C-alpha cells in the first residue's frame, strides 16, 4: 500500500470538481483530482445544448465546449487528474482509500473536496423493469457520448429540464419522441425547451402518467392515463402508445456515500433530492477540512455546480493560506454574485430557498455545538 500526500484532493472530475481543482491549483495548491470514469468531465460533455445563465459566464455556449475549456484550464493549472480511479472509502481524518492502476493507495490531503454529483431516480410501474426502460440521462449518454440510439420511438416521463432537453437531443440524434408525459399539471422545466419539442410535433401531456409498459422481452407498448389531483390514474382515460423506449426523467438524488462515511451531518431537503450534507458559506461540512460542491450538496444544474466548485476551491486554498483574506473575499464575492444570479427568478426560487435552508441548518448545528462546548 502506497501513501500519497497532497494539499487538496478533489473527488469527482465533473463540473464542480474540475472547477474546484482549477481554482485551488491556480492559487498554488498541490491538487489531485480523482475520478472513477475513464474520461473526465462528468455529465458536462453530454450537454450539447447552449447553456442558459449570464453571458458573462459562458451562457450561450454548448455544455461540451464549456467542458473542454474547463478541462484545458485544469490541465494548465497544474492539477493532477487520476482517471479510472476508485475512492472506496474515507476515514474520519479524511484520508482516502483509493485504487489506482490496479494498486492500493492511501491519499492524505490537508483538505478534501467531494464533488461526486448525483444519480437518476427510478420510478416503478408494471413493466418498468423491461429492457428499453432507462433513465433519461442514460439515453443522453448513449446518443451524445457513445453515439448509439437507444431506440427509435421514445416516450419520455417527466417535464423538468432534463426530460425536455433529452427529448430534444434524442430527436437531434434521429429518434422520434412519441410523447412527453408529466404527472404535474404544469411543465416543470423552461418553456423555451418545451417550445422546441412542440414545434417538432411532440405532444406534451401534463396531468398524465405511465400506467404500464408491455412487450415481449422489451418495451413495445406504453399505456398512459390522465391523473387526478392526488396523481392517481383516472380509469377510462388510458391510451396506448407504440414505442420501443421509455425514458424516466423523474429527478436525481445526490451521491452522498463518501460524505456519510466521513461522518458529516446531513439535513433533509426534498427540493435538493433528499438528504444533503450541511455546509457553510465556504462549502465546508461539519467535518473540518471536508468540503462539498455541486450536485452532492443538492441537485441543481451544471452552471451552479461549477460556481460551487469555484467557491470550494477558493475557500480550501484560502484555508491553506494560499490566498490572502482580501484575495479570497474578492473571489468569493464574485462567485456568490454569480450563484445568486443563477438562483434568481421564479425558477430559481425553490433552489434559493433550499440552499438557504441548508446554510441555516449548518448555522444552527454550529451554534448548537458552541453552546454545548
Amino acid at each position: 500500500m502506497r501513501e500519497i500526500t497532497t494539499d487538496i484532493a478533489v473527488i469527482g472530475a465533473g463540473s464542480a470538481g474540475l472547477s474546484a481543482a482549477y481554482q485551488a491549483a491556480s492559487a498554488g495548491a498541490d491538487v489531485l483530482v480523482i475520478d472513477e470514469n475513464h474520461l473526465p468531465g462528468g455529465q458536462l460533455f453530454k450537454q450539447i445544448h447552449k447553456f442558459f445563465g449570464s453571458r458573462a459566464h459562458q451562457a450561450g455556449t454548448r455544455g461540451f465546449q464549456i467542458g473542454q475549456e474547463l478541462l484545458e484550464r485544469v490541465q494548465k493549472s497544474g492539477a493532477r487528474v487520476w482517471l479510472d480511479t476508485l475512492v472506496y472509502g474515507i476515514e474520519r481524518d479524511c484520508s482516502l482509500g483509493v485504487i489506482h492502476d490496479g494498486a492500493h493507495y492511501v491519499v492524505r490531503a490537508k483538505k478534501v473536496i467531494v464533488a461526486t454529483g448525483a444519480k437518476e431516480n427510478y420510478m416503478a410501474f408494471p413493466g418498468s423493469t423491461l429492457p428499453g426502460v432507462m433513465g433519461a440521462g442514460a439515453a443522453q449518454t448513449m446518443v451524445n457520448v457513445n453515439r448509439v440510439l437507444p431506440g427509435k420511438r421514445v416516450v419520455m416521463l417527466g417535464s423538468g429540464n432534463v426530460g425536455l432537453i433529452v427529448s430534444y437531443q434524442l430527436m437531434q440524434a434521429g429518434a422520434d419522441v412519441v410523447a412527453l408525459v408529466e404527472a404535474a399539471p404544469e411543465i416543470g422545466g423552461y418553456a423555451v425547451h418545451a417550445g422546441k419539442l412542440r414545434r417538432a410535433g411532440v405532444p406534451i401531456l401534463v396531468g398524465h402518467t405511465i400506467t404500464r409498459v408491455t412487450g415481449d422481452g422489451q418495451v413495445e407498448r406504453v399505456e398512459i392515463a390522465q391523473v387526478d389531483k392526488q396523481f392517481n390514474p383516472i380509469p377510462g382515460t388510458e391510451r396506448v402508445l407504440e414505442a420501443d423506449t421509455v425514458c424516466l426523467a423523474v429527478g436525481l438524488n445526490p451521491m452522498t456515500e463518501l460524505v456519510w462515511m466521513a461522518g458529516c451531518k446531513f439535513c433533509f431537503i426534498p427540493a435538493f433530492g433528499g438528504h444533503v450534507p450541511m455546509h457553510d458559506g465556504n462549502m465546508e461540512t461539519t467535518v473540518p477540512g471536508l468540503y462539498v460542491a455541486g450536485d452532492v450538496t443538492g441537485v441543481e444544474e451544471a452552471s451552479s455546480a461549477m460556481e460551487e466548485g469555484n467557491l470550494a476551491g477558493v475557500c480550501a486554498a484560502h484555508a491553506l493560506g494560499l490566498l490572502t483574506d482580501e484575495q479570497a473575499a474578492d473571489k468569493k464575492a464574485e462567485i456568490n454574485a454569480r450563484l445568486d444570479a443563477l438562483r434568481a427568478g421564479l425558477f430559481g426560487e425553490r433552489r434559493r430557498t433550499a440552499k438557504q435552508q441548508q446554510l441555516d441548518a449548518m448555522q444552527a448545528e454550529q451554534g448548537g455545538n458552541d453552546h454545548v462546548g
Partner: protein
Amino acid sequence: MWGDPNKLSRDNLQKEDINPGVQYTGVPSQDELSRCPGVPTETRVKLGRVACIECVQEIPCNPCEGLCKFGAITIGEQITNLPRLHEDKCVGCGLCVAGCPGLAITILDRSYSDTEATIDFPFEYLPLPAVGDQVDAVDRAGQVVCKGRIVRVLRPASYAGTAVICMAIPHEYIDTVRSMKRLPRRD
C-alpha cells in the same frame, strides 16, 4: 389509432384554441405574446426584417442582449428580466436567432414581396433543407399550416451547429408559422 403524435397533441388536455399558457402547453398563448416585450408591432413587421423574441418566462438567461450589436435587445442587470426589443434599432441581422439557447427568436419580414413574407428560424436537425426546397411550414405546436420555400440556409462555424433558415411563406401566415417540419433521415 394510437401512436400518432399529431393526433394526440390535439385532443383533450392540449386544445390549443383555449391555450391556457406556456407552462401548460409549451406554446405561448396569444395573451402571453401580446404582453411579451420582445415581440415587434405589426407595423414594424410590415416595414422589413425584425427580430421576434418569443421569450415569455422569466429564466436566468441573457446571451441575446450581448449578441445584438445595435442595442436592439435589452435585459439589464437582473438576468431573469424578459428581453425587450427596441424595434427601431433592430436591423434583422439574425445573430440573436442563432445564439438564443432557447431557440425562441425568429426574424420576420412581411415586406419580402407582394404576396410572400419570410421568416428566419433556428434549426438543429439533420438533414438540412436546400435552397429552393418546398417544405412543410409548421406553427408553434408543430401543426403544418402551409408550404414554405427555402430562401437561404446559413450555418457558419460561429453559430456553433445551429442553422438559421430563411423561408418564404404567404403573408397571412407570418404570425402563425414558426418553423418547418423535420425532414426524414436519409439513412
